[in-house]
């Protein structure tokens, strides 16, 4: 059993729901992340020697 505390028979529904959310949420997240711009890198100006 993956749960630390007993969650009863409804735990199976919870697990199934979590799996579905994991798959569909993962696809949705991946789609959003692809379109998210990567922040510009911080450029440090070092003093010349």
């Amino acid at each position, binding site marked *: 059993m993956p749960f630390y505390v007993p969650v009863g028979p409804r735990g199976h529904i919870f697990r199934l*729901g979590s799996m579905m959310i994991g798959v569909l949420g993962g696809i949705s997240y991946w789609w959003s992340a692809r379109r998210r711009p990567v922040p510009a890198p911080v450029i440090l100006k070092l003093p010349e020697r």
Partner: protein
Amino acid sequence: MRIVAAAIQMPSDLLKLDSNLERADLLLKEAYKSGADLAALPEMFNTGYGLISDYTPMGETLDGPTLTHIRERCRAWKMTIAAGFVERCGRHLYDSLALCTPDGETHVYRKRHLVFWERFRFRPGKGSQVAKTPFGRVGLAVCADMIYRRVWNDYRNKIDVALVAAAWPDFANRHTGRPHWLMGHIGPLSAEIPAKVAADLGVPVIFANQCGSTHTTIPLVGMWLAERLPDRFAGSSTVVDGKLGTRVTAGAREELVLSEITIPSSRGPIACHSMYPLVPAATSSGSAA
């Protein structure tokens, strides 16, 4: 060794960073004046917790305003502070918990078990995180993580303190009090799990939860019955001493839970399941020295 631990229970308004930080600061100050050595703020205490279209503008790196502010407080007040925030690393967003120490170190844990709408907005973390502090090894977890057995098995014999930041809902209609048909029995577990962990692992547990109103959104499973449940956070922030068995628990409103805890002497090998190596902040999005 005995230290004073504080679990800060507070409501956070969605997307109101300034007022949330201000509220947290007042409670942190109260904890400092009460002699707290270690304080925990709830999950996403700065942004608020709820389904919004995009958390990207709220995402922060370790140099962002929230953690910079928290680190300043750690240095000034000689406290170790844990705070939940939305972490941005490149294209990705994480539901993270940072632990900042007075000497400037920042350890970051990324929530592994994302539930409900969270998986649509965040990327799950990949491992546990043991932060080494002056008073011992602190195992970090965020909200729903604590319901999974593997989280505590990973920390068994490897930590001296467990710290959980949460935005754990009651899963009951806040107007009628009627529990949700599927999740109704999960809400009260927020008060039970920290005590069970303390007894099981033999370490103190600090559990800081949000309070106030929320809307629980359960995609897919709850679509027909409770897509948007008018809910409230469960509160019940707790500090439990695993050795003495003492337990101080908050109610459902804003509250500062303060208690002395016993840090057991380190047992077994010191193992660090860090996601990141301890490298300077400029080159890492995780633990930084």
